[in-house]
């Protein structure tokens, strides 16, 4: 039994956990997040994919398989969640653009186009078709970005190389936060003859201040500038995570960082506490309700063994898509791998089905039947189910 009792403890500090946390904290609940470390959001493009497909995201959602957890959420709530998100990130200094009525295409580091919904303002001007005339600026030795991949598809593109003194995404991004570096860079860029009408960069324009930095470059060169997301570590993903984390803290939420959950305390149909292994000794954190937002396999919420798939915090029943040999198809590029359906099945209040606990709610990538790759719904699903689980949780607490 610990001395501090929270109203809600959330396991996982990804987009789902932070969204649920901020939502509850803003309503005045005492909320804590327990996390093992940085979430997979840091590895993402930072864009909010809602639902890809031919029609608008909201229409595409209507057509998803009937098992998809999106069907538990009213379209108006989806709209409201994205509005809340946009306001939060704007307040925190990284405005996003886009709406749930429209998908957009952004250029990737392979020269393909990724379908997404909301994007950080630094990707607003992204090329969205192969005809566009763009000039790519890259950095000497940058190991995660090769403009020639893009040029293989965008025949009207050209590139030039700047020596930033370092060769990693994070190193260059940190340099851009330095006034002198930025000035020297803009000066160099001003002397290059560029005939194309847009300028593209790998997403390294600052660790945190990308919106201001890209605006400054745009202003100096008099033409639109945009960032292309890179493979992890992804700056736009980190920027997004940091802003949402700070937003949660600003709303009086507390984060237990690097505190893996190793057990639970329970009584009857209620979970009373999670036991975490912090430095020195185990600690129990008590709460009236719990939200599980620990992610899928990559995030560590689900663990596959040779025989089964486990959820290790509450030991919830996991929907397992058949025996191991059926988890993956032969074709790598198929997005129909059955493993994408693994996860926790929930009812419309985002409580896990076939389980005893009345005060546990589940959201984000750990949910069953999301098929995130196939449906192009990663970060959007995290935000919306996070909000929906928070609403159910708040009702329960009242």
């Amino acid at each position: 039994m610990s001395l501090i009792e929270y109203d809600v403890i959330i396991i996982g500090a990804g987009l789902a956990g932070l969204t649920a946390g901020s939502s509850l904290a803003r309503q005045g609940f005492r909320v804590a997040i327990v996390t093992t470390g940085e979430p997979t959001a840091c590895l993402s493009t930072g864009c909010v994919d809602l639902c890809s497909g031919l029609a608008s995201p909201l229409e595409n959602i209507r057509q998803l398989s009937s098992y998809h957890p999106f069907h538990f959420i009213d379209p108006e709530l989806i709209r409201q969640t994205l509005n809340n998100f946009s306001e939060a990130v704007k307040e925190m200094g990284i405005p996003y653009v886009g709406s749930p009525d429209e998908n957009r295409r952004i250029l990737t580091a392979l020269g393909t186009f990724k379908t997404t919904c909301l994007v950080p303002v630094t990707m607003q001007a992204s090329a969205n078709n192969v005809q566009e005339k763009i000039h790519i600026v890259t950095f000497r030795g940058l190991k995660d970005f090769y403009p020639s991949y893009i040029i293989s598809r965008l025949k009207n593109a050209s590139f030039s190389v700047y020596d930033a003194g370092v060769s990693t995404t994070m190193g260059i991004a940190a340099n851009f936060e330095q006034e002198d570096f930025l000035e020297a860079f803009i000066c160099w860029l001003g002397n290059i003859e560029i005939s194309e009408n847009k300028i593209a960069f790998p997403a390294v324009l600052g660790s945190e201040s990308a919106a201001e930095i890209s605006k400054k470059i745009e202003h100096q060169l008099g033409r639109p500038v945009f960032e292309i997301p890179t493979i992890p570590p992804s700056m736009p993903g980190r920027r997004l995570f940091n802003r949402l984390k700070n937003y949660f803290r600003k709303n009086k939420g507390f984060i237990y960082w690097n505190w893996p959950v190793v057990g639970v305390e329970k009584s009857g149909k209620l979970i009373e506490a999670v036991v975490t292994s912090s430095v020195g000794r185990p600690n129990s954190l008590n709460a009236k309700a719990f939200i599980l937002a620990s992610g899928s396999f990559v995030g560590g919420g689900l663990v596959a063994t040779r025989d089964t798939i486990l959820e290790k915090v509450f030991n919830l029943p996991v929907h397992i898509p058949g025996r191991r040999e059926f988890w993956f198809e032969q074709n790598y590029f198929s997005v129909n791998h059955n493993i994408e359906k693994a996860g926790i099945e929930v009812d419309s209040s985002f409580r896990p089905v076939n389980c005893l606990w009345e005060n546990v709610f589940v959201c984000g990538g750990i949910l069953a039947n999301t098929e995130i790759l196939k449906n192009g719904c990663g970060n959007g699903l995290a935000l919306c189910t996070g909000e929906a689980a928070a609403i159910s949780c708040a009702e329960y607490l009242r």
Partner: protein
Amino acid sequence: MIKTDVIIIGGGATGCGIARDLALRGITHCLIEKGDFAAGATGACHGLLHSGGRYVVSDPIAAKECLDENLILRKIGEKCVEQTGGLFVRLPGDSKRFRDLFLRQCDDVGVPTEVISSSKALELVPNLNPEIEEAIKVPDCSIDPFRLCMLNMTTSLAKDNLVFTGHRVTEFIQSRGRCVGVKATDAATGEVREIYGNIIVNATGAWANLVAALAGTEVPITLSKGSLVITNHRLTNMVINRLRPPSDGDIIVPNEAVCVAGTTSLAAQSPEKINIEASEVDTIIGEAGRMIPHFQNTRIIRAFSGVRPLLKSQKTDSREISRGFQIIDHENGMYSIVGGKLTTFRLMAEKMVDIIMKSFNLRRECETAHKPLDGQEELSGYPLAKRLIDMKNIVCECELVSRQAVERVIKQTGTRHVGDIQHRTRLGMGPCQGGFCTFRALGIMQDLSVLSPEQSMQALHDFLQRRFRGIRYALWGDQLREEQLVEYIYLGILAMEKQP
């Protein structure tokens, strides 16, 4: 049109060994391989240089051949053989009578043995199952099959013999009932080359019968599939064998930073499109786990399968069929060489070339048993000491391979295949299996203009599909987690499509 003395079909250990032997005896030749070197059974085995121990009971003649070749290869191929030594371990319940028979047969064949107590064995290999009854030490070694093939080809290439990898033989050119040449199609461009030779050697292993059929003849082989798994740790510094009659999952071989364990033995219908059953993987892990308990919890990074060509006999259990080799004279200008083992590839090549010399009426003794393999200095891998010097700008974090090392290989070899960089530097051999670094290596190849952007997109695409074929069978635990991340990167962040 190309004219040569001997056409070798197949770039496995046997074909490459024949090329070297011919080169040393001054015979011009041309080697045609449909994929890359060591792409068949050669590259899909343990990499165990047998001491002979495994065969002393079932096939003493094969055992003696292994022993002799083991000694030769250790001498001529210092840089691709790791002299690990091996142990045959006897677990509780394993037959003591087999152990006595084993020791007697080793003495007869001449395989040096030393019986050691379980505590002494645990000193040598601390990860061993502490419950073993005893162990018998033998001179097994670990060998790198890729490097072995490339080193054999060095001699051949230095004498300007032609090599066409990525070329499939699609037709035999016949004249008066004899095969006088082949047509080979370049898989990349579709270009067809006509190559004429006085003798054609079919050294295509499991494909031998398919190739022979093109020449209107046949090779009586059966196919046996053997599956293996790779761990991401080197759990043992010695080769570990189970002291019992050959069975599933009874060999573990250390190789660089990893271990390879196997095999299984199942009849196969075709040398291509082989699948691995989940039960095979479970069997290997279970059996290997009895010798090294840690195996049960160690991360498996990949499973793979090779198809052994075995000489046909009446027996139905393929493990009982002789692993000895055979040279078939089709009496139409073509020979097929089939069977055998990686360990005896040099001997097989010697016998084949002896026949070729005789038919050309030429006399020159075989030198391959004495001359060290050429090119060992350049191909001596990418040792840790060098990796640490190159530490700046690492492109493969799993195996510590730097951009400089990748550029060095590209410049030295002019290669257009990312596989060549992988075999020479170990790029992509670690836990992520090239998930991050292949994208980078192909980008570097574009920067150095050896590949066009279109070619490297295609190469990336092919690589990911090929890679998946191997890791698909080892997807649980951390490896599944890593794989999901790699999938999100390529299909999510980079929005890669089914076709480039």
